[in-house]
C-alpha cells in the first residue's frame, strides 16, 4: 500500500454516534487503517471505546472523555482535550498535541498517554497500570490513589502529588508544590533511570530529556494497614 490512505469523517455533517459506531465495528484483523476526524468542535466522547489497531487523528479540540476505554488504537488529538482524556484506557497510544484538562488518564490500565502540553488537576488519578508522559506540568492531586503504572512529568507538579498512593511510580523533573499523604521522595537508582529510559523510548522521546534529571516519588506504604494510633481519627 502506498500513499496516504485514510478515511475522513467530518463531524460537521456526520453524527458523533455514527463515528463511534463505525469505529466500534472495526475488528483486530481489519484492513482499514487510518481515520481522520474533522470538526470535533469540543464534542464529548469522541473515539471512545475503540478496540482495533487503527490510527485515528482528531483534527481539533475535544471535550470530555476523548479516547476513553481505548484498546489498541493510536489516537492523536490535534488540539486540547477536555476532562478525562483516555480515561480507563486498556492499551494503545493516545497523543494530545495541546493541553489536557483534569483527570487525564484516570484509572487507565494500560497503554501510553502522551501529552505535549500541560495536564490539569488529578492527572493519572487512580492509575492502574498505564504510562502517562506529560511534557509540560500537571495540576494538583495528580496520581491520587494511583495503584500501578508510571506518571512522568517534564515540568512541575501541583499540590498533593501522589496522595494515598499505592504502587504507581512517579517521576518529576521540575518542582513539586507539595506531596500528598503517604507519598515520599525515593532515591533514583540505576534501575529507575533504566525504567524511565524505557518508558521515554515507548513514548518516542529518546534523547529529548536525560532520565537522570528526574526525581522519583512513591508510596511510603504507611497507609496500607490500620495503625492503632489512628483509632481516634475515625
Amino acid at each position, binding site marked *: 500500500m502506498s500513499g496516504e490512505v485514510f478515511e475522513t469523517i467530518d463531524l460537521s455533517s456526520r453524527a458523533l454516534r455514527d463515528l463511534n459506531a463505525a469505529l466500534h465495528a472495526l475488528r483486530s484483523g481489519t484492513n482499514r487503517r487510518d481515520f481522520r476526524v474533522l470538526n470535533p468542535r*469540543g464534542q464529548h466522547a469522541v473515539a471512545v471505546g475503540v478496540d482495533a489497531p487503527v490510527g485515528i487523528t482528531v483534527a481539533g479540540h475535544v471535550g470530555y472523555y476523548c479516547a476513553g476505554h481505548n484498546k489498541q488504537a493510536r489516537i492523536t488529538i490535534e488540539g486540547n482535550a*477536555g476532562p478525562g482524556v483516555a480515561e480507563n484506557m486498556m492499551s494503545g497510544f493516545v497523543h494530545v498535541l495541546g*493541553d489536557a*484538562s483534569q483527570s487525564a488518564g484516570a484509572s487507565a490500565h494500560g497503554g501510553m498517554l502522551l501529552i505535549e502540553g500541560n495536564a490539569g*488537576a488529578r492527572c493519572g488519578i487512580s492509575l492502574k497500570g498505564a504510562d502517562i508522559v506529560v511534557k509540560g506540568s500537571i495540576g*494538583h492531586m495528580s496520581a491520587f490513589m494511583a495503584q500501578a503504572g508510571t506518571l512522568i512529568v517534564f515540568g512541575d507538579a501541583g499540590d498533593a502529588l501522589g496522595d494515598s498512593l499505592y504502587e504507581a511510580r512517579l517521576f518529576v523533573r521540575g518542582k513539586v508544590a507539595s506531596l500528598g499523604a503517604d507519598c515520599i521522595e525515593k532515591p533514583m537508582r540505576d534501575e529507575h533511570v533504566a525504567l524511565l529510559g524505557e518508558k521515554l523510548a515507548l513514548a518516542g522521546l529518546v534523547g529529548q530529556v536525560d532520565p537522570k534529571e528526574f526525581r522519583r516519588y512513591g508510596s511510603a506504604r504507611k497507609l496500607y494497614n490500620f495503625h492503632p494510633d489512628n483509632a481516634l481519627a475515625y
Partner: protein
Amino acid sequence: MCGIVGLFLKDRSLQPALGGHLARMLGVLSDRGPDSAGFAVYAAPQPGMTKLTLRATDRRAFFHLGNALDALGNDRVSLHPRATHAVLTMPDGSEAEVQDVLAAHPDVEIVGQGARMELYKEVGRPERVAERFDLPFMAGTHGIGHTRMATESAVTTAGAHPFSTGPDQCLVHNGSLSNHNAIRRMLVREGQHFATDNDSEVAAGYLTWRMAQGASLGQALEAALADLDGFFTFVVGTGTGFGVLRDPIACKPAVMAETDRYVAFGSEYRALVDLPGIEDAHVFEPEPARVYFWEEAA
C-alpha cells in the same frame, strides 16, 4: 451542573455582534443548564444617563409604570420593555423622582442598575430566553451569561443568574458555596441587602462590598479566595472589566480563549467554537485559585 459564559471584546468592530455570540454560547450550554438562563450585557455609556433593569411578572405593570413616568414630564426618562423585563433610562438628577414612581409600583422590581449594564434572566431553555430578550441583536463591549440546572433551590426567575449587587456589577457562578450564610450575615451587618437566600448572590455581594471599600476587581477576587469556601467558578462583569476565578479544588470546568480581538470564557470549549478566529486562539484552562481579569483600555 450549570454552564457559564463570558465575552470581553478588545476589538470595537466586534461590538455589534456581541449579543449574537453570547446567544450562541448560551444555546450550546443549554444541556448543562436547561432550567433557566440569564445574561448581562454592557454597552458604551451614554454620558449623564443611568439605566435600571426592571422585572415584572405581569407585563401590564410596565404599561402602568410607563404612564406614571410620562406624567413626570421629563422626556429624557424612557422605558423600553422587553418581555418580562424593561430598561428604564434616566438622566442624572432625576433619581429621586423616578424612585418615587417606582415605589408606587411594587409589582416592578429593580434587578440591575448602572451606566452600562442591562441584565435579563428568566426560567426556560437558554436559547429561548436569549431570543425572548432579543440578545442576538444586542451590541456591547462585554457580557456574561449563565444556564442553570437547579440542584439546591427552586427553578425560579429570582434564583437565575446573573446576580447584581452593585452598579454595573454582576456575577455568574457554577458551584456551591458552603459558608454563604456566615458571609451574608457579615455583609448584612455592613449594610448590604440581599434579594434571595441564594449562595451566588452572596458571592456577588461580597465582591461589591470589597470594591466599595476601594478594591479593584482583581483585588476583590483575590480576597474572595481567602474568604469564600466551597466550589466555585465565577465570571464577573464590571463597568469596564471582566474577571474569572476558580476555587483551589477546581472541580467546576472552565475553558478560556484569548485572541487580539477578545477574551472568552466557557464552561466547555463547545461554547466557544463559533467565535471568530477560534482556530488560532490561545485556548487554555484557567488555573485553580488564580485571579484573571481584564480591564478596558482607557
